[in-house]
């Protein structure tokens, strides 16, 4: 790989061991990809927090050891300096205020807080959400980023027109210290052109339908670039947040175009920009039902746990849930957790939404989600969720069965303790 003079200096250790190890990882990674060079980045979203039980042993050696091994793939423990790129922490495993509700041992919650002091003192912003674009990190079109979190990556590329590949814990750790990432994949304009036409033959408008569409087409196109045409209505942030997360879960969609809506395609022609159409996906009632059935693996209608807010809820979504719960009580047999970024929770507290949800018997959670933390209320066998992503992953990770439906169906399930949802 071709390195600039400054990159060579970092590689050779002129700027310290941490940057040398970071460059070593970036070069090994770049060569594995077949990248010819690195590109400068000043926007990194990664996973730094040490909040899992398996990291306990490593933490005993100190957080430099944690960062060296897990964020730089370096067995040599290096002293970690301040980050050179603007960097934020994505979702973590522990809610810093509600860890006991999650069933997390106190020592792990303490471990996360000590880690945050360390990471914070090096300039890593503790957004602690899978949706940094909801709390102030909104990259500009064309900006080279190094982001993790598949649902954030697809949002960053498609909705914002910024450029990132799906990075990992190690590459973001190295990018934050060097301001570099391999110039490959979605950093290169011609790789951002459409590959598949998606003919949407039924009305897609509400958030559940955007999730079903994403889940269906992700499985078909895998990590290709779909271009939507047909009968969808104007989407909003929350709809595309759900759509992209679903498509990134069933497949590996990292970029899509919605002509006249997303920034890099005013028309279908512009979306393909001369790239041949490699396939056409037709989406109608039958396909919608297939996606729905693939997401619903539960048979027991007694619901133990209702999970809302994956990707993390916007403040409007929290308000909708609070409104649906207003003056009502959830079933004694059911737990309800509503997830939103901590910065938005501040607004929810201030507006009284948190109180409305808590008065009904629910919890408002931040910093984490059940799929990441692997923690749900004790004894949960059947979960209901409005998230295609959680319905996809929770059964695999934790062995529970899942119902997927609209936020309204999920709130009703929390109140009655029974799943009465279905495909409207």
């Amino acid at each position: 790989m071709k390195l600039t003079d400054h990159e060579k200096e970092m590689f050779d250790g002129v700027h310290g061991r941490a940057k040398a190890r970071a460059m070593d990882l970036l070069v090994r990674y770049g060569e594995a990809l077949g990248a010819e060079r690195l590109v400068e980045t000043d926007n990194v979203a990664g996973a730094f927090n040490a909040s899992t039980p398996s990291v306990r042993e490593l933490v005993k050696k100190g957080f430099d050891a944690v960062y060296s091994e897990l964020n730089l793939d370096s067995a040599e423990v290096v002293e970690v300096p301040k980050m050179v790129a603007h960097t934020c922490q994505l979702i973590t495993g522990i809610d810093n205020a509600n860890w006991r509700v999650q069933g997390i041992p106190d020592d792990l919650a303490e471990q996360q807080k000590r880690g945050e002091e360390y990471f914070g003192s090096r300039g890593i912003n503790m957004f602690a959400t899978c949706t940094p674009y909801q709390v102030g990190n909104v990259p500009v079109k064309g900006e080279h980023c190094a982001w993790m979190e598949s649902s954030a990556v697809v949002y960053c590329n498609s909705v914002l027109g910024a450029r990132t590949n799906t990075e990992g814990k190690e590459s973001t750790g190295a990018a934050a210290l060097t301001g570099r990432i391999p110039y490959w994949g979605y950093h290169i304009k011609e790789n951002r052109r459409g590959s598949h036409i998606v003919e949407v033959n039924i009305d897609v408008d509400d958030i559940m339908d955007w999730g079903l569409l994403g889940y269906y087409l992700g499985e078909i196109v895998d990590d290709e670039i779909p271009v939507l045409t047909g009968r969808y209505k104007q989407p909003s942030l929350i709809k595309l947040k759900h759509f992209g997360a679903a498509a990134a879960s069933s497949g590996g969609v990292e970029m899509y175009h919605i002509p006249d809506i997303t920034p890099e395609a005013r028309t279908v022609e512009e979306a393909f920009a001369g790239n041949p159409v490699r396939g056409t996906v037709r989406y109608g009632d039958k396909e919608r039902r297939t996606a729905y059935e693939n997401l619903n693996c539960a048979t027991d209608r007694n619901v133990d746990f209702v999970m809302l807010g994956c990707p993390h809820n916007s403040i409007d979504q929290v308000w909708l849930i609070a409104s649906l719960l207003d003056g009502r009580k959830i079933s004694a047999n059911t737990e309800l957790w509503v997830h939103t970024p901590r910065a938005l929770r501040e607004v929810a507290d201030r507006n009284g939404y948190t109180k409305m949800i808590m008065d009904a018997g629910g919890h408002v959670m931040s910093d984490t989600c059940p799929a990441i933390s692997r923690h749900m209320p004790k004894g949960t066998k059947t979960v209901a969720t409005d998230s295609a992503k959680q319905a996809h992953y929770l059964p695999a990770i934790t062995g529970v069965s899942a119902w997927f439906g609209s936020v309204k169906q999920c709130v009703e399930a929390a109140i009655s303790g029974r799943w009465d949802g279905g495909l409207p």
Partner: protein
Amino acid sequence: MSETLVPKGQTTIVLRGRKVVGGCAEGEAIVTRDTISGWGGINERDGTVIERRHELRGQSFKDKILVFPGAKGSSGWSAYFHMARLNGASPRAMIFNKMTTKIALGAVVTHAPAMTELDQDPLAVIETGDWVKVDADNGIVEITKRRG
């Protein structure tokens, strides 16, 4: 497994491809036509595939030569294969078709030889149980079929 002995007189098939991570390793193949998720797709403690509706669900790639189309799903891919290595549950080598950042970084942090861009589709040539030698430094994969 009892099938790790290569039968005498067995011919081998040689494929050539591109090194992703250098090194040499050999072992029994575990082959899938399904892409693999790291986070949410594997148990990093024992190397089993856990995804619902996955062809390899319940089977482990630990100490095997993992042959698969590529990576999908969460960006935790590399972190989970990284942890599988720290837990001694990683594959001995990886052979895959489709290059992505998830698989490239995942292969790098697994510290096992890895190859791609083979001159024949490895999913068509290699079957589960075949004995496979991966010489990534020289870009060579040598396959001894389990059955003649």
